């Protein structure tokens, strides 16, 4: 028997024009959490797609428990005991937990086509019991939270007797509380000898849960190390291939006039009595646990959702914002957290996305002035250093960081002077993050006001002049840059009130 449950040796994969994987090595021991990190485009996904049977490799060897295997299809991979938990779950929303776990493999009554329900429910309960998840297996999955759905996915993986489970950014949509539960579950799996490949952009998680770590960069294998041997800076350096001097290049500017003020903003069921202001040149953070109502406040200011009561002031004047159109006219822009679903028209080009929110300024007579449109787009590509082969590139093909820049270009073109960034760097790799932060600095310098929603506390602490903390739909407190610490923010975010004095 081999020491490893999985070995991938000298894996090479070519795409037209690129060497996506250049002799990559990866191995996994039973009962180990092996983190796979690297910037977007480093080749992590390609490597995992090969493992999942979704793509063939050009050369290389894959061994499962010491035996060489040739993975023919995703179905085959599953049969071999390789399971994937993607960010987007493969669950059927109106079917129950048990039906989802055994989808396509339902136990039958004898040789009949009838489903043996009692056995299916019993088996599902047994599997969830193994990972200590107490869910009613008859519940339709659309009634479950995202975290619970993830548990169902993991249960489904276990039902295949998986020897290894790949988790791709499992924390992206979880609250801190749910994340803790996920980590408990991962430790349980680890205790049962299952190998886990854990992909994440958040290095804090690597330190918390990881046993070993493999870094990839530009399709190359950089190295594998025990996590305890590394610190944050060393990992970042391996990922970006150079010393990253300053992860948060914050510049502080003298704030000017009040750009936006909200008073008593309320949308029942989402947030209550929220009041704050942002001045020009300021970056104000809006943080809290997932579900605290941060995104909802942003959407209300942007006119995407109605408010029940309260007042919004822009430049000191009371305004009514009934729709995103109203907000855009008033110089407000929203960079949504869900870039692909809400921020971009994925099938349209860089040019079309850049000008979409302010097309009327390019209309001459009845027609869109193509030349002006091209010039405008090229100007923003230059200013924001958007990496794209041409302005006619379909945005679907850009990396996350460049997609975010296209969205920013769209709002700069509308001459927004209040920009709301909702999780601006989620899913964006370390190098591109710094670029986004620098662009935020540039905006603040020229007198824009920025409201930044962030769940990543180091980011909020690193980039904001002030931090507003929400708890269950209400503003729990406000911290100045100098006094803010992770502990104080968490104190407020978990509803323990304003920490008394400095000695928290």
């Amino acid at each position, binding site marked *: 028997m081999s020491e490893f449950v999985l070995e991938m040796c000298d894996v090479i994969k070519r795409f037209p024009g690129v060497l996506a994987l250049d002799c990559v090595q990866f191995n996994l021991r039973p009962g180990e959490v092996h983190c796979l990190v690297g910037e977007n485009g480093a080749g992590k996904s390609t490597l995992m797609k090969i493992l999942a049977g979704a793509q063939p490799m050009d050369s290389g060897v894959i061994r499962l428990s010491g035996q060489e295997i040739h993975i023919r299809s995703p179905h085959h991979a599953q049969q071999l005991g390789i399971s994937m938990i993607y960010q987007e779950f493969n669950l059927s929303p109106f079917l129950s937990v048990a039906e989802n776990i055994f989808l396509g493999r339902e136990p039958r009554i004898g040789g009949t086509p009838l489903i043996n329900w009692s056995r299916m429910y019993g088996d599902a309960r047994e599997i969830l019991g193994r990972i200590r998840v107490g869910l009613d297996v008859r519940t339709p999955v659309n009634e479950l939270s995202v975290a619970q759905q993830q548990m169902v996915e993991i249960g489904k993986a276990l039902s295949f007797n998986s020897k290894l489970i790949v988790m791709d950014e499992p924390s992206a949509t979880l609250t801190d509380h749910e994340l803790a539960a996920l980590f408990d579950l991962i430790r349980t799996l680890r205790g049962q000898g299952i190998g886990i490949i854990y992909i994440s952009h958040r290095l804090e998680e690597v330190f918390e849960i990881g046993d070993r770590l493999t870094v990839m960069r530009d399709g190359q294998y950089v190295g594998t190390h025990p996590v305890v041997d590394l610190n944050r800076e060393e990992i970042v350096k391996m990922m970006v291939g150079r010393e990253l001097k300053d992860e948060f290049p914050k510049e502080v500017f003298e704030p000017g006039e009040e750009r936006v003020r909200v008073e008593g903003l309320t949308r029942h069921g989402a947030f209550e009595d929220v009041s704050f202001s942002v001045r020009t040149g300021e970056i104000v953070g809006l943080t809290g646990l997932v579900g605290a109502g941060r995104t909802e406040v942003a959407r209300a200011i942007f006119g995407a959702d109605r408010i029940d009561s309260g007042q919004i002031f822009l430049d000191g004047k009371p305004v009514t914002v009934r729709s995103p159109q109203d907000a855009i006219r008033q110089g407000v822009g929203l960079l949504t957290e869900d870039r692909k679903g809400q921020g971009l028209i994925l099938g*349209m080009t860089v040019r079309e996305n850049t000008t979409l929110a302010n097309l009327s300024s390019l209309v001459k007579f009845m027609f869109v002035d193509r030349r002006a449109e091209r010039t405008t787009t090229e100007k923003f590509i230059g200013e924001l250093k958007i990496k794209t082969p041409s302005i006619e590139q379909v945005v679907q093909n850009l990396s996350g960081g460049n997609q975010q820049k296209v969205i920013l270009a769209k709002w700069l073109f509308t001459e927004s002077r209040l920009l709301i960034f909702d999780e601006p760097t989620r899913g964006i790799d370390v190098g591109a993050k710094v670029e986004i932060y620098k662009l935020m600095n540039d905006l603040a310098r020229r007198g824009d006001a920025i409201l930044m929603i962030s769940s990543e506390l180091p980011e909020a602490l690193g980039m904001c002049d002030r931090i507003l903390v929400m708890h269950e739909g209400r503003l729990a407190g406000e911290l100045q840059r100098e006094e803010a610490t992770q502990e104080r923010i968490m104190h407020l975010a978990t509803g323990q009130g304003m920490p008394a004095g400095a000695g928290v």
Partner: protein
Amino acid sequence: MSASTEARRSLQQFLRTYGVLILAVVIECAIFEIIARRQGVRSFLSASSLVNILNQSAIYGVLAVGMTFVILTGGIDLSVGSLIAFGGVISALVVHHGGEPVWMWIVIGGGVALLAGAAAGGLTGLLVTHASVPPFIATLALMSSLRGLSYILAGGRPIAPLPDAYTFLGRHRIGGLVPVGVLVMLSVFVLGAVLLNATRFGRHVRAIGGNEEGARLSGVPIARTKWAVYCMCSMLAVLGGLILSSKLGSGDPKAGLGDELGVIAAVVVGGTSLSGGRGTIGGTFVGLLIVSVLNSGLNWIGVESFGQQVILGVVILGAVLLDRFKMHERG
């Protein structure tokens, strides 16, 4: 210089996207020509037969432009076949009961029919945008009601006789050569292409079909744009109905029965995605040609109508599969 390079680039783009479809039309023509020569019937590829093909596709063409816009927003319009009858019946009714001068009553009849079409489309638009009724259901309901209304208005049988001048739109040929209906269709295609490619409205239509929520959060007026699209589609369907009624010389409540499927087929064969956001007017034109050359060609070489339907089904499937294959290759 940049204008000509842009023109060349967009031509390249067009050929890359629709080269295969254009090739399909050419191959179709060649096959029919070869068979026609073997059988010793008249040559298929004569100027007059090509004009005939265009003439026969004029009605579908006018409808297909409106349908392309609707499908681009991610919707569908099943009521266009009934609108063909509805438009024809209304205009025939006006002309039938009108007096002298005939020309004035023909113009009034056409105008009233177009307004009625706009009202029907406006109703669909309201149902889709403000009552959130799925377009399939809203237009299915209208398809039934408008067909019934056409029968009631016409009293169950075609409205005839109508004055000779009524046939101008459907039968007249300018200089004895170019049918008026073909000119109308070509103008609708050109205007449709300009509207889609060069105006803000067209951009909004594609943005909505590509990602409605994303478009809304970029300040695109969703309701107004969709409403306009359904109005336009219905008015064009009525225009098609006017051409047909003029060709028949009567207002027939049975006209256009099932035509919505043929129109959708032409749009889909032309590469427009039923999920919205992707498609062009040029593609629809080529799709229309593929379907009409096929119909005319099969007629020419004497394949009876049952066989034609079978072959049309195969061609629609083939075109969609080809498109899937191309998407797969790209993605």
